């Protein structure tokens, strides 16, 4: 630590150069942090998918008859079944998109314990036909209070019998999904019976069934057992675990991984070249200085250590700044994406750690040649240059 002053002064020998180098490292890590943050946020969504929960949908992309419910319940090993529909609408302006999930309240909360709702509000939801529970962050953003009547204009799957798509709901409470990447989704939970009697078409159908099974290791067999029930019906089903369903949706978005890696790779390769050449240049300018230091009694290892520490300080310091910036930016961006129904984005600490690790490696790789030369530097040759 006593050489920190020396390292610091060495770093600021040429102010402009150091500032430019720091800025380009900051930008490279900002890019890394944002892209990896987006990537991991999506992957965490998959990891949240449970292995003992199955999702049954219609592979033709259509609805399933609610009448399937009792047959699914009768499958041995299925402990609980819930079902839901889905429609998309907006509140006051197309900017405020909301997703409405008509659910069967009792079975929905029994199977989705991550939704935390106070018992009083849950009871109010059960007893209020037009009642809805809304995400806490959504209520805050749109300044909704419990007791408010809110008009939702339906955009998709939301036609009503009366020919309009205008729904009015009463807010009976809020929910939160602590620690879940989708906690900020603009989601409304409504009562399925109200939805089903009011809608214009597809009455008596649901978008999906969600089954909890007793033994997760039997998931594949159970999925087959459920699908076999409806194999010869007009609406055959496709059942998979919650996690596999999420994975399938993610895989269809496209080659996210490939692009993140290609871009980050290009950025880091350029960075390595840049810092490498900067450090080498700084070293050449200071050959004389190093020779003097060696004359004064600095060891070979001491001099190369100084070179390495400068590179380390430069890289890791700038990387931390870049990663912190990425964290802040993702938080802002995340509140925007959550608004349109995508998962909230964030930069997990693990990505932060990986970033710092990469910074250390970059510092080592770019400082190794000058550090090696500083170590081998012969005092007489170096001083003779002048």
């Amino acid at each position: 630590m006593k050489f920190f002053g020396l390292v610091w002064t060495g770093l600021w020998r040429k102010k402009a150069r150091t500032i430019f180098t720091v800025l380009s490292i900051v930008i490279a890590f900002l890019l890394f942090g944002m892209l990896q943050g987006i990537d991991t946020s999506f992957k965490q969504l998959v990891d949240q998918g449970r292995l003992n929960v199955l999702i049954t949908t219609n592979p033709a992309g259509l609805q399933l008859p609610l009448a399937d419910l009792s047959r699914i319940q009768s499958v041995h090993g299925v402990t609980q079944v819930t079902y839901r529909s889905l429609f998309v609408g907006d509140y006051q302006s197309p900017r405020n998109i909301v997703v409405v999930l008509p659910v069967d309240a009792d079975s929905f909360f029994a199977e989705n314990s991550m939704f935390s709702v106070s018992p009083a509000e849950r009871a109010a939801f059960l007893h209020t036909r037009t009642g809805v529970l809304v995400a806490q962050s959504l209520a805050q953003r749109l300044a909704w209070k419990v007791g408010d009547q809110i008009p939702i204009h339906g955009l998709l799957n939301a036609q009503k019998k009366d020919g309009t798509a205008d729904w009015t709901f009463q807010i009976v409470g809020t929910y939160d999904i602590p620690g879940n990447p989708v906690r900020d989704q603009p989601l409304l939970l409504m009562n399925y019976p109200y939805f089903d009697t009011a809608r214009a078409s597809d009455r008596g159908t649901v978008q999906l069934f969600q089954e909890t099974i007793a033994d997760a290791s039997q998931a594949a067999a159970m999925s087959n057992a459920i699908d076999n029930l409806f194999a010869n019906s007009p609406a055959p089903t496709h059942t998979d675990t919650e996690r596999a369903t999420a994975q399938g949706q993610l895989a269809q978005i496209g080659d996210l991984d490939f692009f993140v890696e290609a871009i980050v790779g290009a950025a880091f390769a350029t960075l390595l070249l840049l810092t490498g050449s900067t450090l080498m240049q700084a070293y050449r300018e200071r050959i004389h200085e190093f020779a003097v230091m060696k004359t004064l009694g600095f060891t070979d290892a001491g001099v190369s250590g100084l070179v390495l520490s400068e590179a380390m300080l430069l890289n890791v310091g700038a990387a931390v700044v870049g990663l912190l910036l990425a964290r802040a930016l993702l938080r802002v961006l995340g509140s925007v994406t959550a608004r349109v129904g995508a998962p909230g984005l964030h930069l997990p600490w693990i990505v932060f750690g990986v970033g710092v690790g990469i910074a250390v490696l970059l510092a080592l790789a770019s400082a190794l040649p000058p550090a090696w030369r500083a170590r081998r530097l012969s005092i007489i040759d170096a001083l003779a240059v002048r």
Partner: protein
Amino acid sequence: MSALRQIFAVVGMNLRNLPQRTGASLVIVIGIAGVVGVLVSVLAMAVGFASTIAGAGSPDRALILSGGALQEAMSNIPGDAVPNILEAPGIARDAQGRPIAAAESLAQVQVQPKGGGKPSNVALRGVASVESELRPEIHLVAGRMFRPGLHELIVGRSLEERYGLNIGSHLQFQNGDWAVVGVFASSRPSLLDSEIFTDSQTLLAAYQRTGFQSITVRLAGPGALEQLKHALAADPTLHVNAYQESTYAAAQSRVLNTLLSWIGYFVGGMMAAGALFGALNSLYASVSARSLEIATLRAIGFSPSSVVVSVLAEALALSVAGGLLGALCAWTLFDGHVSSMLGGGVQQNPVAFTMQVTPSLVVLGIIWACVIGFAGGLFPAIRAARLPIARALNAVV
């Protein structure tokens, strides 16, 4: 000596000296190559995707959807309304006087990708015929047509590549075994190349449906769309809307296209800032390495402007080289690369498309490179011009 000749002399000397500063020059070239490479690649995706979605649409055709439906998948037109709709004016008719139109239904089937992995949803479209006056751009390229009444399919060309759906392969869905008997392709990139076709009535029977998702019609000529729209709106028994097919197709890809372009410009812009700092560093270094040379030139009468131009020329030459290198990398790696993305909107079927590195993208990349080079060269150039001659010459070792 004229100013121009001075400039040429100094620029020429500076460019010939470049090989002596390889390391620093490479930082500029590679830094800018990275920026241009990423920018051009991401935009090549956007271009390829948009042209594939748009390729399914023609200004000569109209798409009729049920009222309120924003997309084919959300639309439902009862079968008994179809003859009424086809009576409407504005629809082109063939030599026998029959409307050139097709009522089509859509379903989804799950297909296993070639290399394994999660099955994807692929659109299954019930069509009247493939070689028709309605969509002359679509042709059967291998095998034969499906026969009505049998569980037979023909598949789009991109599915053949992506899912290994060849003639002779079978798919199981809707309680049946379906055989692939042919492959079709459009003459330009099209969304339809990622679909499976079967006979319209066979599909309705298999899914026990009576309604269609859409009616596609050929328009009789200019003004026919307005005519058709009016006629459909005037009939109170019909709840349908007509859209020009090309307009509809463009609207389908707009959101994703904007998103992709935005990602390209954002990531490219960030990398450009990084490359700019790298260029500033290298050019300042280049100026300080040349300080003796610059001072000598100034001492023997070369003007400051010729020095400024020489530094800027160095910056621009290196950045154009970087830009070309980046565009070349993007072109060799990705031009013609088949990628796939969800087809936007609610239907969410993966659409295969070919990335297109077009000349205009390459030009855009070079322009970016020049802007970065110019910005990175300006301040070092000014410093070079302001170099105190006496002190620089004094510093001689």
